């Protein structure tokens, strides 16, 4: 029954922390930096490319190759673990030598692009699984340096908005990818090879935009007394009170964040969403995320990231509440998807924006990677325990447990908020 959580390894959401923002009344906020727009374009293009493959993969396996895709489940665990470790490595590599963010991120994008043509020659489950794992490694490698670049090219006043713009562009790509794939399939018969080739071309464009239009070199301003980017220094970041608190809050709230797959499954079961809509549910969340990422990012800059971040989790709590609610109106599934999308919009980029405030520029990438990895592992743990709780006590009890856990963790996060920061709730 359940589709194991394929998103738990991805840093889609964020728990955010506080913010050193001090918005000055009457002053116009600066526009989003060109680097952010360039990175957003790279993410948009890359997401078109990867979602093209994702959208046709099951069809390709079952209808094209005549395989049953169940064997893939075996690789899932390895995959999540590897992704978390790669993210830390990517973060660390990017910080060493100051301005390497662009090149480490570029290597990640290039690796994923190179995986697409490999799909043309892999015809059995294991090679296909390995190609996808490699693709995911590329994603793990690029995420932290990319977020570091976004935070480094924006100011404390507009960082929330910068991340909002980036996440909105990223999500737009994710929505366009399946559309592109099905247009190609429509124009051909069994044109999976064409889908993979087009996907590869699109990915190469993404890499080119990164190489040509994202400033590299000494992008990181080096302070006089900057810490050397050693592994020890990366982990020593956790001794900083604010970052530690952010990481702990992200971790705690991650432990109570039920994976998307479970939310959609519960939505279908509890609210009786018809089978044929099942595949469209993630699109609903993504569309709301797309629409709200920028406005919520701006609000986070003005009202405080911590507040917006906790507000996002309140939206998640309400999502759980609606799923537990005995009343089943036709509007309820829409309300659930709206709240679920708002949760992502209020937390994903906002956490990175908040964490960025507490990490010195020379360790930015490592610091963000630490928070992302902690959150990803917490969510993975939540997936496993939610599955176990569902098994032992049923879906309703499992969700009630998650709601209580979320409320408690939210309370702790409220108390633990990073000190000395304005805009704390």
């Amino acid at each position: 029954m359940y589709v194991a959580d394929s998103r738990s390894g991805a840093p889609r959401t964020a728990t955010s922390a506080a913010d050193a923002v001090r918005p000055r009344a009457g002053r116009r906020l600066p526009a989003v930096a060109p680097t952010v727009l360039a990175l957003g374009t790279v993410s948009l293009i890359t997401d078109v490319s990867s979602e093209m493959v994702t959208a046709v993969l099951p069809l390709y396996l079952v209808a094209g190759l005549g395989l049953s895709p169940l064997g893939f489940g075996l690789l899932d665990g390895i995959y999540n673990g590897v992704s978390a470790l790669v993210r830390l490595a990517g973060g660390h590599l990017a910080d060493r030598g100051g301005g390497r963010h662009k090149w480490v991120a570029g290597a990640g994008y290039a690796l994923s692009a190179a995986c697409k043509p490999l799909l043309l020659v892999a015809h059995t489950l294991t090679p296909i699984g390995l190609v996808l794992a490699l693709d995911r490694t590329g994603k793990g490698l690029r995420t932290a340096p990319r977020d570091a670049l976004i935070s480094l090219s924006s100011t404390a006043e507009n960082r929330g908005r910068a991340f909002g713009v980036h996440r909105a562009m990223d999500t737009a790509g994710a929505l366009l990818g399946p559309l592109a794939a099905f247009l190609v399939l429509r124009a051909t018969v069994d044109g999976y090879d064409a889908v993979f080739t087009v996907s590869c071309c699109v990915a190469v464009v993404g890499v080119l935009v990164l190489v040509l239009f994202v400033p590299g070199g000494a992008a990181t301003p080096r302070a006089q007394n900057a810490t050397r980017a050693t592994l020890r220094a990366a982990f020593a970041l956790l001794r900083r009170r604010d970052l530690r608190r952010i990481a702990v809050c992200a971790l705690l709230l991650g432990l109570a964040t039920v994976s998307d797959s479970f939310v959609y499954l519960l939505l279908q079961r509890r609210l009786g969403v018809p089978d044929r809509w099942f595949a469209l549910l993630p699109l609903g969340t993504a569309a709301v995320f797309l629409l709200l990422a920028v406005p919520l990012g701006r609000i986070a800059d003005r009202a405080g990231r911590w507040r917006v971040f906790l507000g996002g989790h309140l939206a998640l709590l309400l999502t759980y509440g609606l799923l537990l609610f005995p009343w089943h109106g036709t509007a309820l599934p829409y309300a659930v998807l709206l709240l679920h999308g708002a949760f992502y919009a209020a937390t994903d980029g906002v956490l990175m924006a908040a964490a960025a405030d507490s990490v010195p520029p020379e360790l930015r990438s490592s610091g963000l990677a630490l928070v992302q990895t902690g959150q990803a592992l917490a969510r993975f743990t939540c997936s496993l325990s939610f599955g176990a709780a569902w098994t032992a006590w049923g879906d309703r009890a499992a969700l009630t447990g998650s709601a209580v856990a979320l409320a408690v963790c939210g309370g702790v996060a409220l108390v633990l908020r990073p000190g000395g920061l304005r805009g704390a709730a």
Partner: protein
Amino acid sequence: MTLRSRILILVSALVVLVGVAAASVLHASARADRRDEARPGGPRITAGRVTLTGGARRVVFRNMAWGPHRDELVSAPAADPSGPRTASGVKCLRFYAASGTGVCLRAVHGPVQDTYRAVILDARLKERARYDVPGIPSRARVSPSGRFAAWTAFVGGDSYAGIAFSTRAAIVDTRTGRLTPTLEAYRIVKDGRPYQAADVNFWGVTFAADDRTFYATMATRGSTYLVRGDLSARTLTTVHPNVECPSLSPDGTRIAYKKRVKGAPKDAPWHLYVLTLSTGHETPLAEPRSVDDQLVWQDNHTLTYALPGDYGADLYTVPANGTGAAHRVTTAAVSPAYVD
């Protein structure tokens, strides 16, 4: 590098990449046209009337040979499956039939995305009922009496590089129209005790002649089991470990299935076996290759199944008692059903 030269590089690269992408799409769509033309040396196919009852014993399957009748249900003499094919004009991804009832799993092309549906066919391949299928359909079966139909769908692949899939097995009573969208609604008895888990998956339903008993695969916590289902009591009971895609013999005494064997490559792990239900004895079949299909009993002694071939899939047969050898009976065919 100036902005101008950077833009120049990007534009030239775009020209090349758009060219490559367009060429690959054109190539694939030209191939589609080629597939509408019959290949020399392929089976002889003529349009005609295909029925699921009446007449000599035939085998009905999805024709995968290139030509105007590609992907249509065709019939061929059961004694000579490679003989001339009669094409029905009905397209299916997967198909099965018994006693004048057919189940056809097909794609419905939408503007943004394909959806899938299971269609119940009468003996003249006319649509009697249709049901939404929540993912990519794979296995299809009809009970020997023609009353019940079942299908399996793979659900998943809805987020970035998602590699986790789950299955849903549905059963419908074609007489009353009552649909069980997923076997997860049934009570599970595992090793004699009630069992509940969120990660159970079912696939590959096969029916007994009594219109009450069926068998299927249940997977949970990394293991698979043969389960016996009861349509009246709505229960599932584990019978035997490591059984996938069971297929019950016409006499109801044996299950043919694919078994995950130790030491086989991970991407080709399945060998064919026959399980005698009364004794629990497993007999390996004379097919050395890994098979990923739900077998079909041609009669009480012979099994038919598909293996990948030049045009998608070919049909093979092998004796059910472990003797003899497997051999190919026709090319470019999948989802066979024997009808009288």
